[in-house]
């Protein structure tokens, strides 16, 4: 079982993700450079946080066109598990793997602090080891984390139980307090908070572990 951590120019949470999977979860993780056309033999993919391509044009807009993203699209279409955190979430919405967009925080400030999240569904490979309603303390660190989608898309996300996490106190103006969402097939998760920064007791919270533990327990057997 191996997790691929994508690395774009400007990624800066790639090592945090690697450390969480390798050290805290005793799994195997390897880095995949953005210009790779394949994901190799990985069983799941992490798009880490950071500032890919300096956030030029729009956050995630240029990373979306990286060769590796075509491989990620194929991997996701085949049912592979893909989690995007922070800038990784921004890349997933730009790539069209998740609906909506992430806008500048209401209040304009970059916010770096621990927040409380409510788990809204346990019915996904990323939350199966959590319980619905479970509150997690996980840090956020973003300037552009205001989740936006039109009303129809928001209604659809709720009707299909695709809101994975909500903020207890909305820090950035996100529509309907949304902090993380799933795709329709439930094998792609995007979230602004950083679970990889809440996996080691040294970091003050280990509430992020449940997300990765769920993911590692639910890796599907894909025909490659």
């Amino acid at each position, binding site marked *: 079982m191996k997790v691929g951590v994508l690395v774009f120019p400007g990624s800066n949470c790639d090592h945090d993700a690697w450390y969480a999977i390798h050290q805290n979860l005793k799994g195997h993780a390897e880095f995949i450079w953005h210009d790779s056309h394949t994901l190799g033999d990985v069983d799941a993919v992490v798009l880490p946080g950071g500032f890919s391509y300096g956030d030029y*044009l*729009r956050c995630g*807009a240029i990373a979306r*066109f990286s060769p590796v993203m075509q491989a990620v699209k194929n991997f996701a279409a085949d049912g592979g598990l893909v989690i995007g955190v922070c800038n990784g979430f921004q890349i997933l*919405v*730009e790539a069209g793997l998740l*609906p*909506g*967009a992430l*806008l*500048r*925080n*209401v*209040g*304009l400030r970059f916010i770096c602090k621990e927040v409380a999240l409510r788990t809204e569904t346990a019915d996904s490979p990323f939350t199966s080891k959590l319980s619905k309603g479970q509150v997690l303390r996980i840090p956020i660190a973003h300037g552009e984390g*205001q989740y*936006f*989608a*039109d009303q129809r898309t928001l209604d659809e996300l709720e009707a299909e139980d695709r809101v994975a996490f909500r903020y207890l106190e909305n820090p950035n*103006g996100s529509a309907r307090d949304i902090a993380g969402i799933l795709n329709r097939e439930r094998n792609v998760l995007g979230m602004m908070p950083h679970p990889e920064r809440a996996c080691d007791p040294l970091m003050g919270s280990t509430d992020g572990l449940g997300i990765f533990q769920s993911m590692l327990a639910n890796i599907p057997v894909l025909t490659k």
Partner: protein
Amino acid sequence: MKARVYVTFKPSVLDPQGQTIRAALNGLGHKGIEEVRQGKFFEITLQPGEDLDAIARDVLSNPVIENYRIEMLD
């Protein structure tokens, strides 16, 4: 040839930067400024045959939140 591409937020999208600029202008005494919407502007030099509409739609703007307008010069 040269072209200009303007990318602006859709009316339904909140623009906190524009609101902050409007508040600053009001604070400077420009009481008549009612609304500011901030957008992006691209100056592009291109050869004939490039599909600028596709570029503006697929790359320069995000259709979920933004509209674009192209102006061809000379």
